[in-house]
């Protein structure tokens, strides 16, 4: 138990913070209940996938500035394919879009490996490319989503035999998020490839000399990042019912949550759980500030201050830790 605590200390701390914030929300607004929690999770969903995409890239020692525009591109592809199509057609659209995301990410990785330009510059250039492609697919927000896809993330789950009191607090969106992330991340982390991703992030040269195929691993890491971004794009289409070619504020939020979640920029450390909890914390802070009737513009100041001070604190603790072993 202690070992688990020490190893996952940061994540546990974030979880405690999240629960404290939930209690605070309840204290401020006694009516805060299951429905508000459900809408919180729904709002978090695209952010969570963006964060997952960023996490994989950062663990592999890179950074992906194109996450937001990849989400926009996959979202408009999904929305325009499902526009006017039958409900069952969406069954083919979903895997196709995920495949597209995987391909886009792999293209990112391929460009990084082939051109030898730093990750940050390549993904910066790709940000423009994907944004342009999204504008070519759909000029203005539009398209449609299949009804069953939209309903997938609405309301609480219903399990026969379990009292409604319990299930009311488990939103469908949370289930979708958990299944999608676990289905990709758990096998990946336990596989040879996952180990290689951590290895190249931690020390590329050492990994290369230990026989890790660096180029292939990097391409695949970015491909998985793209896959998560495609899930984010689908989540956008699912929650809004349309696709929008202009990316939302997902890049900044994803980098912030990755850092808050205990994944060090530079790579090789951290997991997926921390950043996901962190993004929930960040969104909940926003909700609480709204409940407090704080001016939404002041909310941005609060968010930035929290982000900066938490990151400073984390860096300070890491510095002290390395000085006094």
């Amino acid at each position, binding site marked *: 138990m202690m070992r688990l605590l020490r190893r996952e200390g940061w994540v546990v701390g974030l979880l405690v913070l999240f629960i404290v914030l939930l209690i605070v929300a309840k204290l401020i607004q006694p009516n805060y209940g299951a429905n508000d929690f459900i809408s919180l999770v729904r709002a978090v969903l695209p952010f969570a996938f963006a964060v997952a995409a960023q996490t994989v890239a950062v663990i592999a020692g890179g950074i992906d500035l194109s996450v937001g525009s990849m989400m926009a591109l996959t979202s408009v592809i999904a929305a325009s394919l499902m526009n006017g199509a039958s409900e069952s057609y969406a069954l083919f659209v979903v895997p196709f879009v995920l495949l597209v995301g995987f391909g886009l990410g792999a293209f990112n990785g391929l460009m990084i490996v082939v051109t030898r330009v730093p990750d940050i510059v390549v993904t910066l250039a790709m940000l423009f490319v994907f*944004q342009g492609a999204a504008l070519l697919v759909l000029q203005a927000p539009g398209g449609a989503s299949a009804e069953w896809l939209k309903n997938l993330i609405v309301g609480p789950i219903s399990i026969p035999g379990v009292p409604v009191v319990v299930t009311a607090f488990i939103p469908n969106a949370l289930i979708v998020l958990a299944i999608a992330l676990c289905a990709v991340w758990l096998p990946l982390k336990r596989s040879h490839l996952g180990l290689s991703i951590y290895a190249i992030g931690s020390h590329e040269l050492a990994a290369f000399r230990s026989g890790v195929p660096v180029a292939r691993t990097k391409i695949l890491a970015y491909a998985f990042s793209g896959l998560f971004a495609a899930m984010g794009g689908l989540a956008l289409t699912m929650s809004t019912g349309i696709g929008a070619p202009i990316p939302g504020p997902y890049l900044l939020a994803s980098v912030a949550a990755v850092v808050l979640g205990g994944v060090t920029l530079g790579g090789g450390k951290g997991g997926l759980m921390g950043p996901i909890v962190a993004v929930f914390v960040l969104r909940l802070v926003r909700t609480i500030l709204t409940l407090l009737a704080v001016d939404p513009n002041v909310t941005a100041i609060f968010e930035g201050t929290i982000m900066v001070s938490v990151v400073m604190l984390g860096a*300070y603790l890491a510095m002290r830790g390395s000085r006094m072993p």
Partner: protein
Amino acid sequence: MSVTTASPQSAPMRKRVTRFMSDYPLVPLIALLFILILILQIMSPGIINERWMANTVKFAIPLAILAACQTLTMLTGGIDLSVGTVATMAGFIVVTQSVNHDPAVAMLIALAPAIIIGFVNGIGVGVFRVHPLIMTLGTSLIGVGCLQVYQRTVIAGGTKVPDFLNWLGTGVSYGLPNALLLFVPLAALIIYMLRSTGFGRLLYAVGDNENAARLAGVHYWQVITALYILSSVLAGIMGLLYMGLIKAPSLSLAEPLVLPSVAAAVIGGTSIFGGRGGYTGTMVGAVILTVLTTLLTILQMPEGARRILFGLIVLLVTAAYLRIVEDR
């Protein structure tokens, strides 16, 4: 290709050319610039005239100033993404404050937030060792929030672009944009600082090998703090100038220029990992990007295709440049 390498005489020639290009990396960059201008001339004959050149320079200067921030911070292995917000704040504050104040006072007020944000960036990066990307993104988030709150308080006051900034931003005398009066001394100062002053050398030293610099007695945090304040002030000056050029106060004035400014510095040959690069290349990079934007506007293409081309060209130029410079 196999023919050229096989013949004994052309092989050294080829080597000499690549050697020459890697010794003078500016040459291929300027060649690229002229090729772009040539394409532009072919696409729409007669477009290259005095007015066009003055206009291109006018729009390249703000980008070049922002790219100076990126160049300086990238030399130490950092990056400054808060420049867009800082520039926007300076521009917005100056037009709202000059309603009630003297333009000179308004400009000083407008530069105050730049100094504060630069100081916070410097402390975060230099003392607390936060990753510059995160630190500057965070401060820019705070800055945007503050600016929105500020906008509420002054919305009724109206705005006024000071005549001086108007003259500086858009004026042309003797066929040359007035902005050059600001930019030429500024650029000369930056180049002189990087080449011949202790501070400039410290930037290269810190970026090249931080531990070595520290062991040699460099006070890391002082260098970094001074650097980020300088970067922010440069961004603030750019904001004032850009406001004189655009003349429409908005809360996203300079934001669209942030990513191109990084691209300009990278195209100009400054390494994002630090320790290598300079400002001359960056200036050429900024002009290249401006000409490229004009070129893509003239091509009758949908907006989407234009962005795709922009991204791909930035990537290709950077890759080719890295090959040339590292091919020793």
